[in-house]
């Protein structure tokens, strides 16, 4: 086992390794792009939640109090 040999071996590992990493990630990118299209088609975003934000905030205050009560009860 000479030293030069080992570096040569390591270089081959590097080629195999980086190759696999990129193949993996390229396939992943490809699949994710397809997925984004499919999901976008079948699950259109519901963007109408915005106007109800005021109400949600009010609910949040109630929830905070409830949460605190729960936390208190749990703690005792």
């Amino acid at each position, binding site marked *: 086992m000479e*030293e030069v040999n*080992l*570096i040569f*071996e*390591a*270089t081959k*590992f*590097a080629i*195999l*390794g*980086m190759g*696999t*990493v*990129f*193949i*993996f*990630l*390229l*396939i*992943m*990118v490809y*699949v*994710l*792009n397809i*997925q*984004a299209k499919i*999901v*976008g088609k079948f*699950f259109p*975003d519901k963007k109408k939640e915005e106007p109800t934000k005021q109400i949600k905030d009010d609910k949040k205050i109630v929830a905070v109090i409830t949460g605190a009560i729960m936390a208190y009860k749990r703690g005792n």
Partner: protein
Amino acid sequence: MVKKLLLLLLFSFTLLFGNEEGGEEFVKKEYHPKTLVELVASFWETTGIKAIIDVNDDEVAIDPAGEEKKLGAFESSVGRIIMIGIVFLLFYLAIAKGFEPLLLIPIAFGGLLANIPLAHMTGPDGMLGIIYNMGIANEFFPLLIFMGVGAMTDFGPLLANPKTALLGGAAQFGIFGSLIGAVALGFDLQDASAISIIGGADGPTSIFIANKLAPDMLGAIAVAAYSYMALVPVIQPPIMKALTTEEERKIKMGVQRHVHKMEKLLFPLIVLLLSILILPESTPLIGAFAFGNFVKESGVVERLSNTMQNALINIVTIFLGLGVGSKLAADKFLVLESLGIMIIGLIAFGIGTAAGVLMAKLMNKFSKEPINPLIGAAGVSAVPMAARVVSKVGAEARPGNILLMHAMGPNVAGVIGSAVAAGVLLSIFK
């Protein structure tokens, strides 16, 4: 009274001969009366001062597997003092400098305990040895940590712009570059592979691989991995600036698209299925990570997700740190290899950062939307610190230019990239 003592003795004998199967083998040693002077003298023999002052060659270290190893004079005296110095340096870095304290404090404290003379805390019956056998020897703890990290990771930024994942791939040049470097330094191929994973900048992955390929170097590899992850804000900026022009660093990137809940839910399954198809060897790591992320994104088992992110990962972090620290015993750590590991780790981070930035420059040339080359540096992972460093360097060039979310894509892809690289190395030495 004599009869009772005899009965007790008999009972002890029964215990002695019956306990072959259990963890506990109880033997009552016979006690011979001693004068007070003899008692003090024999006590003196058991003190640590004696062990340090009067070094002899008889001391043994016991590893978690119960294997005894005779310690040299250096390892049992000066070596321990050096190690305690290193431990205090790690404490200083963790506490005063804020370097990855969650792992460096338990690791360093484990190292402190491992270097105590005569206490054999790293043996199979010692606290560190018990922990080591419980979850390090079988690689269970790193997987649980990875599960918790999965439950904490948001892949939204990656899903918003999948092609940034390639930057997380380029950064893996850090791993393979340092593999070649380690071989050049004289490590054999298997040890070099274990060391090179430091360049992946993922603690659990490094520990997992070190344990499989080179368990005797686990301590140095883990310390190097976490130390360099902590040093990201120091190591990366000069490299990033050297490889980019002022104009490139000023590039603005568009607003990220909204990512649907369903995409996030399916993502861990896609990654896992890909790793099953291409690289089953990486599935323990990616499987644990994907499980944690899937539990989180399912949205219906909040209590399991919270437990993974808190109680469970914290408990395992304490144990993992102490267990890894047990490998900081002088006889394991104070070898020339450790120095080599430290040097290679530093090079690995540099190469990984540079490769990420250069890849991002390349992608910017061919991409329709502009890509700021800085975000390539986040591909080394070290989540989320590398992404924050990118954002900081970007904001220096153009105040108000927030790159954080754009950098998170390569950042989390770097975790996957390292796991894939780890799988390739494992498959070679299988």
